[in-house]
């Protein structure tokens, strides 16, 4: 049972007080992604008590919930109706909130095939930098009235407003899922995933780890089983647990804490990069590569840059290093202006994404 608890007025009072006193606020949901991005100094603004499902009708393919509602509660509700959040957001702890999912904008294993968090955000209700409650987007799939603030907010790490409510597109769960494990060298895995990108195989997740390529197939039974016959390989047991462990980073690969964990993002057909081989795990058909490394920051960002990619310090702090990849000057300027325009008093999570704002 999800508690129906509206604390909008309390939150708004705190924001208005923050504006009046120029006192920054650190917005906290479940605190499960506190490791991600820069630390911010500010008065804590706790959103997690703000809970409740405002609207959910499976046939509308949309759920609207208060930001503090726990991700696991929402997922359970959707599962009971044969639906899911298709972007498979990580749930790093039982306290993870749906507001935090949208604010951090992190997607899971299905991302390249099912779309990202922002692809599923239909609407948000915010406390703005002017201290007012404002609603953008809505519960409908198509909505082009006004600028798309809902998707801009997604992944903005709480720097542009306090999320009060989100409306998300939900999708049916696939009827059948099957995960194949194929042992092969990384070059072969690269070739296979590149070929598969041009096919109509019902691919919904990939992982290359420890000399083995894992392919998840999702869809109607006939299609999934026919694809299995064509691709070959063994179907693994406990496939759901395997992908959940990747998604929530409880998989053994993510249990190393002696070095920083980098996340590199590349165009899909980026070849194997030998400098990044070794202590690594590759997802998203090659687009997302996790690496533990002590390679100097400049060097790793250079490797990313050369491959048309970017590199994020996902976990573990490096002194003086901004976790997020530096932006081109003109892009940084416009983002800074946007931050100033939407949060004129600079009170929302200052410095959480980039130190200057």
């Amino acid at each position, binding site marked *: 049972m999800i508690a129906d608890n509206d604390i909008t007025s309390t939150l708004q009072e705190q924001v208005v007080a923050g504006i009046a006193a120029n006192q920054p606020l650190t917005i906290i949901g479940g605190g499960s992604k506190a490791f991600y991005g820069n630390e911010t100094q500010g008065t804590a603004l706790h959103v997690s008590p703000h809970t409740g499902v405002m609207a959910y009708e499976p046939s509308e393919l949309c759920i609207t919930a208060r930001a503090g509602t726990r991700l696991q509660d929402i997922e359970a509700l959707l599962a009971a109706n044969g639906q899911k959040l298709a972007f498979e957001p990580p749930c790093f702890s039982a306290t993870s909130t749906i507001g935090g999912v949208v604010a951090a904008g992190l997607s899971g294993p299905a991302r390249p095939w099912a779309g990202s968090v922002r692809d599923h955000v239909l609407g948000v209700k915010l406390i703005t930098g002017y201290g007012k409650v*404002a609603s953008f987007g809505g519960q409908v799939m*198509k909505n082009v009235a006004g600028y798309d603030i809902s998707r801009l907010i997604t992944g903005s790490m709480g720097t542009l407003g306090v999320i009060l409510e989100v409306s998300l597109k939900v999708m049916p769960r696939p009827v059948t899922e099957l995960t194949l494990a194929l042992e092969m060298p990384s070059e072969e895995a690269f070739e296979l995933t590149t070929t598969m990108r041009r096919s109509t195989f019902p691919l919904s997740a990939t992982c290359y780890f420890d000399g083995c390529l894992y392919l998840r197939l999702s869809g109607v039974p006939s299609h999934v089983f026919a694809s299995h016959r064509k691709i070959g390989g063994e179907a693994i047991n406990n496939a759901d647990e395997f992908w959940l462990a990747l998604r929530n980073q409880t998989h053994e690969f993510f249990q190393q804490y002696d070095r920083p964990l980098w996340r590199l993002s590349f165009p899909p057909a980026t070849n194997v990069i030998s400098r990044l081989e070794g202590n690594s795990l590759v997802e998203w058909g090659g687009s997302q590569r996790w690496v533990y490394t002590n390679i100097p920051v400049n060097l790793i960002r250079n490797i990313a840059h050369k491959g048309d990619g970017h590199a994020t310090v996902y976990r573990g702090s490096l002194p003086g290093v901004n976790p997020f990849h530096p932006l081109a000057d003109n892009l940084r300027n416009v983002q800074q202006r946007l931050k100033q325009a939407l949060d004129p008093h600079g009170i929302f999570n200052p410095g959480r994404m980039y130190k200057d704002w």
Partner: protein
Amino acid sequence: MNTATTPNPALLQQLKDILPEEAILTAKEDLHPYECDGLTAYRHLPLAVVLPTTTEQVQLILKTCSRLKVPVVARGAGTGLSGGALPHEGGIVLSLARFKQILEIDTANLHARVQPGVRNLAISQAVDHLGLFYAPDPSSQIACSIGGNVAENSGGVHCLKYGLTVHNILEIQLVTIDGELMTIGNDRQDTPGYDLLALLTGSEGMLGVVVEVLVRLTVKPDTVQVLMADFAAVNDAGDAVAAIISKGIIPAGLEMMDNPAIRAAEDFIHAGYPIDANAILLCELDGTEDEVSEQVARVSAILKNHRAGTIHIAKTAAERARLWAGRKAAFPAVGRISPDYYCMDGTIPRKHLAHVLNKINDYSQQYGLGVANVFHAGDGNLHPLILYDANRTGELEKAERFGADILELCVKVGGSITGEHGVGHEKLDSMCVQFGEAELEVFHAVKRAFDPDELLNPGKAVPTLHRCAELGAMHVHHGQLSHPELPRF
């Protein structure tokens, strides 16, 4: 309204330094083709129309306009339906029509780099032999340009399954009002910093000018099947749509037409629509052979359960194309039965369909104007076509009031005043119905961050607080809506 203001001599001189003479139009007869877009009820002549061919020229043009404080209205193919490309009388029209190149097709990364003047359908045609297509398919796809699609976040009949423009573009090259060129987005699955690509998609030329687009290409499904079902009751058709979706089936397309729309389309295209039905549903399913035949069986059963009359499954590709042709030609078909029509674009949660359609019929009687409804039923996007005759005094105004009432109704049931056509010039007043001061303040802040002097497409898409306050006052007078929080002017 139909006279061009005297061109600013400094502006013209500087434009001539940037562009060859033939790329600058100033003669009245040359400006007339640009006086409106697909919404022909509003027309203005701009000072000049410029037709650059390079990004550098666009940068210099914008730099010049920024310096001289001259408004700029960017224009693609001019097929927009909300007056988004309506010229500004004191400004220039920046046409991207000469940016027609498909620059790159990458079959490994599944993307194409195209210039903004490339037609939507031309992209799919260029990659068809590779077994790929560009998914968003607005009905105007033979004519509309990809740059315009980005500006409006265009949809189409296949966006329930394949998404809108925002889901199918990866990167844009944008020129800002001060002439700066920036790359927004990339060919990866995420981007550092704010998601400006999402913000810019659908921003109606208010924040920058798109000079290049990287679009995602989709692998064509093995098989496509189209079903048509007729219904004696509109409610049953609406319930069938909800039932299909709640059974976990996401059709590639799911369209509804009401009786006036069916009759008009059948008369025009001879698609084989049942002219006595009160509603038809067109349902397209795609995937592998097995997948599609399984889904056809399931959808047919659901349709039968919801009292569909005949369920017709297209037997050949030609028949499939004919069934869609009727739907895609619904607008011109309605154009044949009425001297003029006014196309609306509201979205609603699907569950309110029957209520909304009944209300629209009430309004129709109240205003004494006919209406035909076509509906992207899968995603709740309604296109009522209001029939009127502009030659009859007062009918256009009546049609506009009828339209505004429909949009207000959409907002009331939890929907939006525009699903895919944009606000443009047309729906500024309806924006005041959907949004209050708190939202408008944020929209204006966004505009300020990109275009502080408000030179890009000024006066479109986002109404001023003043305008909404006055409208609010007017609405209070009628006992409807109000903005008590706003100062009165």
